[in-house]
């Protein structure tokens, strides 16, 4: 940096800012000099690190990168993880993605929890020709409305986890049928939170339930900033539903669960609750989550989804004692994504996507990877959801866990029967 430039910088931003800027500039310079054609493959990871979900996912990606490096890297090149915090906000994520691609020179982007974040950076990553492997966002729009509409433009996008919410809606209907068999619960209150990922739970799930001969007593979307749940619980009760079938990722829910349990509302709490995926949720709710269920990829590490699920979870738990003490669903996705990316790059023979996109895309489409959350294969270019992970018991299943009293409050896998470790338990006041 010339003295002249230094003087300008000093004048424009002051001493403190100047020192910081020098650091930033040096880092940026290092990034510019270091990326692209050097000996390091850079894997970007974007997750909301103020949430347990994002911490678990980042740690899981770190573990996978460490394993890959211990095993000789990718095509004999070292792998570096560039992990950033999306804060779960699309604008913040856009800024981070821009830095990661243009300053840090990442070769692939893995991650995103909030679907709106994925949708907010998808155009940028397509424009910059950076592969994007979604490991936590479930909105069907990510594949259907992008590669499904303009395959050439968005063929850089793959999703390893979780199954998209169109498939989740079908799986939840199967789960409802299971509950009807187990407990005779035939009436369901469909209550998704209001967000991009839950659209199919409003559009598809009610019809799926009715197809299975089940009753939809209530179909209402819940505002994400709801903080008084009594009216919601009263509404479900008034509908006469046996089950509140909710899908929450952003609504925290502890308050709702304690109100539900203390007042012994006459219905069960089933479905998806991301907060409940945290192993610390029992303590967070003072045990208020007893009997609640949540679906979660990788069964939250509570069951043998594949032979890798439990060893990976145990390894995670050995390394990390502070919360979250399990990878949580996105962790399984991010961990599998790193390994799948490595295999695809080695098949393609290059980590430079822009140089030969077809080689990478074809190699990804050849994926048949037994990961921690299932056997991962992708739909092809002609499918309604191109490059989406295949759902189902033979591929990526949809395990449901229930909080039970055993062991002082723990989650056990109760569905599907093929991998369940325990029976689903009815709340005592409903028995």
């Amino acid at each position: 940096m010339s003295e002249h430039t230094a003087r300008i910088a000093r004048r424009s931003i002051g001493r403190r800012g100047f020192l910081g800027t020098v650091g930033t500039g040096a880092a940026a310079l290092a990034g510019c000099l270091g990326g692209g054609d050097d000996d390091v493959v850079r894997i970007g990871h974007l997750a909301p690190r103020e949430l347990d979900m994002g911490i678990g996912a980042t740690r899981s990606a770190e573990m996978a990168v460490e394993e890959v490096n211990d095993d000789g890297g990718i095509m004999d090149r070292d792998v570096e993880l560039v992990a950033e915090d999306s804060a779960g906000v699309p604008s913040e994520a856009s800024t981070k993605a821009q830095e990661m691609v243009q300053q840090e020179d990442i070769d692939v982007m893995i991650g995103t929890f909030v679907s709106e974040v994925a949708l907010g950076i998808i155009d940028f990553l397509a424009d910059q020709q950076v592969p994007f492997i979604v490991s936590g966002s479930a909105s069907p729009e990510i594949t259907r409305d992008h590669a499904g509409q303009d395959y050439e433009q968005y063929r850089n996008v793959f999703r390893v986890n979780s199954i998209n919410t169109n498939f989740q809606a079908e799986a939840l209907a199967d789960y409802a049928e299971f509950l009807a068999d187990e407990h005779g619960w035939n009436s369901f209150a469909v209550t998704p939170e209001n967000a991009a990922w839950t659209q199919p739970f409003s559009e598809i799930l009610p019809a799926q339930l009715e197809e299975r001969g089940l009753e939809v007593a209530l179909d209402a979307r819940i505002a994400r900033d709801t903080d008084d749940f009594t009216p919601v619980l009263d509404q479900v009760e008034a509908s006469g539903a046996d089950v509140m079938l909710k899908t929450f990722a952003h609504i925290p829910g502890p308050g709702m669960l304690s109100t539900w349990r203390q007042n012994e509302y006459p219905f069960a709490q089933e479905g998806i609750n991301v907060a409940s995926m945290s192993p610390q949720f029992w303590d967070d709710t003072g045990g208020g989550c007893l009997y609640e269920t949540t679906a979660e990829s990788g069964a939250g590490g509570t069951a043998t989804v594949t032979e890798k699920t439990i060893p990976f979870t145990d390894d995670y738990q050995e390394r990390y004692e502070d919360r979250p003490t399990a990878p949580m669903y996105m962790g399984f996705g991010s961990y599998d994504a790193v390994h799948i990316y490595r295999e695809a790059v080695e098949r393609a023979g290059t980590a430079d996507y822009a140089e030969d996109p077809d080689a990478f895309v074809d190699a990804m489409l050849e994926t048949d990877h037994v990961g921690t959350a299932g056997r991962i294969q992708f739909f092809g270019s002609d499918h309604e959801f191109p490059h989406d992970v295949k759902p189902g018991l033979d591929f990526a299943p949809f395990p449901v866990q229930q909080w039970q009293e055993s062991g002082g409050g723990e989650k056990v896998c109760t569905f599907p029967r093929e991998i369940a470790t325990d029976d689903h338990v009815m709340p005592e006041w409903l028995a």
Partner: protein
Amino acid sequence: MTLQDHITRRFSEANRYQFGLLAILFVSLSTLPLWAPITGFGGLIYPLALANIWAIFAMGWDIISGYTGYISFGHSALSGAAAYATAMLATHLELPLAATFPLSVVAALIVGMLFALPSLRLRGPYFSLLTLVGALLFYRLLFVFNEYTGGELGMSVEAITYDTTVLYYYTFVPMVFIALGLLYVSRSNVGVVLVAIRENEPAVESAGIDTTKFKLWAFTLSAVTMGVGGVMLAHFYGSVDPTTMVILDRSIEMIVMAVIGGMSSILGPIGGAYVFILLRDTILPGTLGLGGTQRWFALWAVALGLIVFAREGVFRKLWHGLGEQGSENESETE
């Protein structure tokens, strides 16, 4: 008359040091994408492109609040109205930019008038309180009408470009023109009346000047500026959401930028915006590696420090320092 004389007479009574500083800053900022990548400062182009938009907001706030002393705590509702109008018109009605841009500025103007008309005739804290509550109300409306606004996670808009150099000039050029326009107004007789309103409104009224009319004009100018910035911000990110555009913190940030730079100076708030955005998006999270809560705590702590120790604004202090330097040197040569 040289160009320097012409410019200095037009906009201020800058001496050669002050003029030199302005010239160096202008030249270095207008050529940033050329020299930054080769000197290792390439990482500054994107945050400074964003800072240009925030500079527009800070100037928009300054022309009403800095000059007249009617402090608005709700200016993010104006820029937010424009950003959301852009997103909603593009998404729901599929209108092109040529239509969404003017309509969005009108949206900012309408929200601005809803703030200004009932409150600018009142004295005391009513204006501030009304803008504060107005912004809270606007924020909540986004959730009430979440089927149109996308609620907390907002909605997508077409991003203006992914080329950071082009993006930088898309934000830098309008920012410069807005700065020149607002400087022109603020250095004219209108500016004098606005400052007089701040200093002693009854005295201005007793001179037969309709202060409400002047305040309304200033607010109109402010709302239009906020509208332009709001549209730019929506297309900058390619998305709008309440946290980025509307939440009360954003209103406070505009004020802090203007105060750090130096209120009622138009140019000061630009500097304030640059310092604030660089701290928020580059220095604290990048260079110092602060995440989440720590970063925001540090940001507000630094902002508080700057406000306490440079009450008139960092850039005004620098400006006056150079002014004194100039007069000392001039007296030496005499």
